[in-house]
């Protein structure tokens, strides 16, 4: 098992390395002179030159990359010319906000998706199945930002019980939650649909399996048959799928935070694109990719723990 984890971690490291190159080159491919972007408004040629030297922009690209990577590894992602704050500091403030949003969305998605998926599978072909399946397709089809606007319309404009937008730090839990609930619902809806569909198909597979017939023949209660024998095998698949949805969650967060004006990394991404705030953009994209790669790795390890066949096979698949 250790061999599998090590090998998997090695691949992740290579992927991460590739990601840093893409981020580095990608940001340099954006239109505009990075030196101009890094400097305060209307810089003089002298200031520009000083900045080029300071950031090593006068050196060849590979050298620049090594310097940049070295600094990034030490936690130095540069300073935002827009705010004058170190990018690392901004990220440390903003990552937890998006993380909270993502976790809330995940909770909503699992709380809706897992039971709905089980129900649809157990009652396959009946009205509850059709309702759940159709609702899931609806959830997949509704664009986040439109759902956000509709929810604002419903709960902030029509029946004003929740704030339309903005953010309150978690030090005020009630205020924080009241601002987070609508965005979390928006972000969780699409994910709930994905979870539900995966859960349904995994449960259908399990419920048709021979071992479920065995459990029934042993006289186990239907609760045990569905909730222990079928569910355990289905959860393995669903955990994997949910883990791989992190990218989708971040994509969703980008637009959801924009609508609800939540200062997470999603909004930071868009803001830095429009403000041409390249150090921030570089930092936020790098942190997103790193997060994705790490979560993928963790999901794979969790999968190998949950699925004893892989654990013993040592990832020989």
């Amino acid at each position, binding site marked *: 098992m250790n061999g599998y984890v090590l090998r998997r971690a090695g*691949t992740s490291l*290579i*992927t*991460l390395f*590739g*990601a840093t190159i*893409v981020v580095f080159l*990608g940001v340099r*491919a*954006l*239109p505009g002179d990075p030196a101009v972007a890094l400097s305060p408004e209307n810089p003089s040629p002298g200031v520009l030159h000083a900045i080029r030297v300071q950031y090593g922009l006068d050196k060849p690209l590979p050298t620049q990359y090594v310097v940049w990577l070295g600094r990034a590894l030490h936690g130095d992602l540069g300073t935002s010319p827009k705010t004058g704050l170190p990018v690392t500091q901004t990220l440390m403030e903003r990552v937890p906000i998006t993380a909270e949003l993502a976790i809330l969305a995940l909770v909503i998605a699992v709380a809706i998706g897992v039971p709905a998926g089980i129900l649809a599978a157990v009652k396959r072909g009946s009205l509850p199945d059709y309702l759940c399946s*159709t609702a899931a*397709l*609806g959830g*997949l*089809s*509704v*664009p*986040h*930002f*439109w*759902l956000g*606007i*509709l929810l*604002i*319309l419903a709960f902030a*404009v029509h029946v004003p019980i929740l704030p339309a937008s903005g953010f309150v730090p978690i030090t005020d839990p009630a205020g924080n939650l009241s601002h987070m609930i609508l965005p979390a619902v928006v972000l969780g809806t699409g994910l709930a649909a994905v979870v539900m569909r995966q859960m349904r198909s995994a449960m259908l597979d399990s419920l048709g399996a021979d071992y479920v017939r065995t459990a029934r023949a042993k006289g186990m209660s239907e609760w045990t048959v569905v909730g222990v024998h079928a569910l355990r095998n289905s959860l393995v698949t669903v955990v994997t*799928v949910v883990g*791989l949805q992190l*990218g*989708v969650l*971040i*994509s*969703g967060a*980008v*637009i959801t935070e*924009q*609508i609800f004006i939540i200062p997470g990394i999603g909004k930071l*991404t*868009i803001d830095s*694109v429009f403000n041409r705030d390249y150090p921030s953009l570089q930092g936020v*994209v790098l942190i*997103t*990719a790193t997060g*994705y*790669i790490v979560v*993928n790795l963790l999901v794979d390890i969790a999968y190998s723990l949950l699925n004893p066949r892989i654990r013993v096979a040592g990832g020989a698949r």
Partner: protein
Amino acid sequence: MTAAPATAERPRTGGRTRRKFLRRPPAVIGLIGVVVVIVVALLAPWIAPYDPDTIQATTVLSPPLTGGHLLGTDDLGRDMLSRLFVGARASLAAGVLATVLGLLVAVPLGLLAGYYRGWQDSAISRVVDVVLSFPFLVIAVGLAAILGPSLSNEVIALAVAQVPVFVRVTRGEVLGLRELEYVGAAVVNGAPDRVVLFRHILPNTLNPLVVQATVAIPNAIIGASVLSFLGLGEQPPTPSWGTMLSDAQQYISQAPWFAVFPGLAIALTTLSFNLFGDGLRDVLDVRMRS
């Protein structure tokens, strides 16, 4: 009951497939929706009751069913229905073109990786891994920002963002097909790679790819509307559903319909594609690999 052997050479069962499809009401509804959207997009200039770009100060933000405007008007007094009709073009173009373009790039890469395995596979798979570590929307927004805002750049950005998933699906299919006996037999009998790839493998990857495309198109439509919403897609005054929604955001309490209709158009279009795709997947009996 024994499972049907996984023969790749499926008999021609067009008629039966069609009947199976037609027996699924949701799939048929989806198909009808898709056809309607395509027809509306094609005929938009002729069926739109008004010129979609004509600004009329006297009718700013009129509610639906007033002043001869079925769905009301926007903040510049333009007819909503006409703008929705014309806006269908940008959304559909982005969704379909981005998917087709993405497939054109991805399928050869997937074939290469799955068929030759070896270093080609390692190289392609690593790159795919790297690109996949960036969220779809971040790639699309980043590329759109690099390329500059326009409909064609929006299409390119979405196409590139879709490539990694398509490569993975194609590669997975090819790996599976390569194991089949008749492919092995063809290789042993000295059939050139070209023949094996294009006669034996490619045709059998079509069903899964078609199904994948029906999932990708609605995703691309939503992605396109997001890019437009952010101002990175179709530029004003040409309407697109995303920009209409973005314009509507500030009038949300005065003119809710302004925000409701474009979103509804996006949602119904993507729902139609999703229903159609689900039905197709069931009928073609394709198992989705994620």
